[in-house]
């Protein structure tokens, strides 16, 4: 009789990833599937649910707030990407220069905003964007002879206020990503380029940018996700209701449907819609950037 031996060697890897897999199944996949199910239901407590078919989705397509929120997050994502990729790349490039004095100090300065809570930062920016002439930003523009602006109550300036806080906050993080990418580029490339007579700009353009592509794709992907799911800053600025929806985001609507309206089914519908939108955008983005294509 031969005892069947357990082959520990082959099982071990699965065991090591098990905690992650289990927590993913329990805390991510299960709620996700449930959310999809609930998006077809009217939920009044877990014991009191009703199938309503596509009613929630019909409501979604007729919901003016949804389109307003979608337009807001599209603009927000567009601007954050437009600023938060080139700018941190440039900052990282400068930070990576040999012989830059106080490198450590500057790197920390750029990174510190990331460590503050977005709610606290939001509050401070809210006061800075006060409509009063004593507000920080109104004070600044008063030196240019511009009258006080009611920043948070009109569409363009409200978006500006959201972008400012995003740039302030995420510049440092993205800089770190690019910095780590830069450190992986071999200095020999730059040396040989110098020998061939390339100037600083040419080196940046022909060596740095192409070799940072993987990092750029990563930053772009997380920026799209972060942009579409932005909530904290908007909530601190306006709470759940912003005048004429100037600051409403998709997550604001999800939050509002669930917690100020008690409509969990519709909340899940919005969540599923957000998921679908982000997936589609990311697929387009990866296609355009040529990711997942066979190398060579």
């Amino acid at each position: 009789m031969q005892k069947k031996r357990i082959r520990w060697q082959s099982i071990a890897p699965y065991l090591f990833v098990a905690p992650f897999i289990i927590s993913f199944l329990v805390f991510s996949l299960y709620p996700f599937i449930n959310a999809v199910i609930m998006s077809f239901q009217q939920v009044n407590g877990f014991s009191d649910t009703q199938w309503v078919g596509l009613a929630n989705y019909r409501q979604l397509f007729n919901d003016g707030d949804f389109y307003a929120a979608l337009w807001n997050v599209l603009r927000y994502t567009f601007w954050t990407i437009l600023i938060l990729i080139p700018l941190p790349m440039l900052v990282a490039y400068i930070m990576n220069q040999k012989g830059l004095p106080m490198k450590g100090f500057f790197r920390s300065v750029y990174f510190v905003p990331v460590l503050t809570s977005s709610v606290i930062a939001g509050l401070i920016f809210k006061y800075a964007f006060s409509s009063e002439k004593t507000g920080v930003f109104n004070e600044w523009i008063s030196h240019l002879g511009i009258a006080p602006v009611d920043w948070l109550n009109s569409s363009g300036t409200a978006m500006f206020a959201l972008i400012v806080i995003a740039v302030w906050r995420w510049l440092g993080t993205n800089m770190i990503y690019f910095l780590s990418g830069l450190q992986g580029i071999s200095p020999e490339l730059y040396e040989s380029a110098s020998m061939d007579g390339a100037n600083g700009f040419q080196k940046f353009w022909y060596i740095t940018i192409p070799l940072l592509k993987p990092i750029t794709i990563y930053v772009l992907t997380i920026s799209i996700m972060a942009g579409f799911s932005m909530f904290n800053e908007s909530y601190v600025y306006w709470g759940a209701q912003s005048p004429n929806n100037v600051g409403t985001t998709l997550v604001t609507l999800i939050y509002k449907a669930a917690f100020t309206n008690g409509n969990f089914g519709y909340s899940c519908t919005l969540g599923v819609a957000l998921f679908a939108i982000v997936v589609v955008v990311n697929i387009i983005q990866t296609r355009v950037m040529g990711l997942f294509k066979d190398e060579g």
Partner: protein
Amino acid sequence: MKKNFGKKIGLVLLTALTTIGLAACGNGGSSSSNKTADGKTKMTMWTFVDAQGTFFKNAAKSWNKTHKQKIDLTVNVLPFDQMNQKLTVALQSGSGAPDIADVELGQGAIQLKADKPAYYPLNSALKPYMNNLVKSRLDNFKKNGNYYGLDYHVGTTVTYYNTDIMKAAGVDYTKIKTWDDYEKAGEQVKAKTGKWMNEVEYSAMFQYDAMVTQQHADYIKNDKATLTNAANVRVLTQLQNWIYKDKIARTAVGGSIDNDQFFAEMNKGNVASVTMPSWYMERIADHMPKLKGKIAIAPMPVFNEGDYRSAGGGGTGTMVTNQASNKKLAAKFVVWAKASKGQAVKIWEDLGFDPVRSDIWSEPVMKEDNKYTRYFGKDIFDTFVQLKSQVTSTTKTAKISPDLNDYMLKNTFPSTLLKDKMTPKAALQKANDALNK
């Protein structure tokens, strides 16, 4: 062999850790026994105001001195949003909720939207006190004939005048009886001092509510919006005129009268008056130290004769959840903690609220020295007592309430008050159509 053994140990540990980790998640809510070793019934309470938590802790101590069934109360104070999210989720999922919870009126509307609210009715516990309680405050938490919460306060709405500004402008605020008088006084204030008579909220609606309900009117009937009635149009027109026609007011700094930026504005002496519920005394006393002794409390001006000179505003009900271990005892305790005579006095002394038990309002104990009598003078309740029978509220707990609130703050106020883009009538018509769709 030895190597294998080490791996087996590793596997066992890993499995154990995972199991423990998962088990810990499922074990949050109810405790195994609901009595302490010395026989007290364990209860937990969630609230979002520190002082209210302390108030209930002390109430439990007093209760234990005089009652047979003793209570061991644990109070958790959580931030407002977080508490409501947790509570909503706990009630929806059927486990993890506290025995007792403080629920703010606006949140209460959401919690009571369900056909079968996840709370225990306080009716029988309220019975002995019923005659002495201000009824409109109970109605805020009423559903299908059941009272699900008992408020801390009545929120008697009054007009607070900055007496320095009034003097400088030569206005006798006691002579302001109607909103017309108020507007004229405002013009005088603006002309003589350059200060604003008022600042108008657009991200909250306390003053709007008070001015609607004082006309014996409402904006919801049978769960339908009735925003187009004359009373609502009158109020919104009045508020818009103050800003854009008479220019005696501007939109409130920070959107409401109840936020830090506005407190600073008022503290600096830039605003001559505000109309707010009684609990605004706390905001004034705590955030506007410069105005000590300079704020007068007077009944609200009216539109027409016969209008109420006050209203009820805001509110937080203490509710017993249907997950409470001993619902009956919890209900009795909650009601006692607010409606018994000694406790009602404590609500004034400790929290600075006008208690829902109003027969004590005219008792001498209400004039005793405390933070508020020192700030506003000893006769605060002399004004409140006159207004006692005039405290009504707009409907806040209908199914449509959260939507109506949302729509007004998002669309109607921004397009009529924040900007002068629509006439009040058109804006209210639009809101009404959208809500009754």
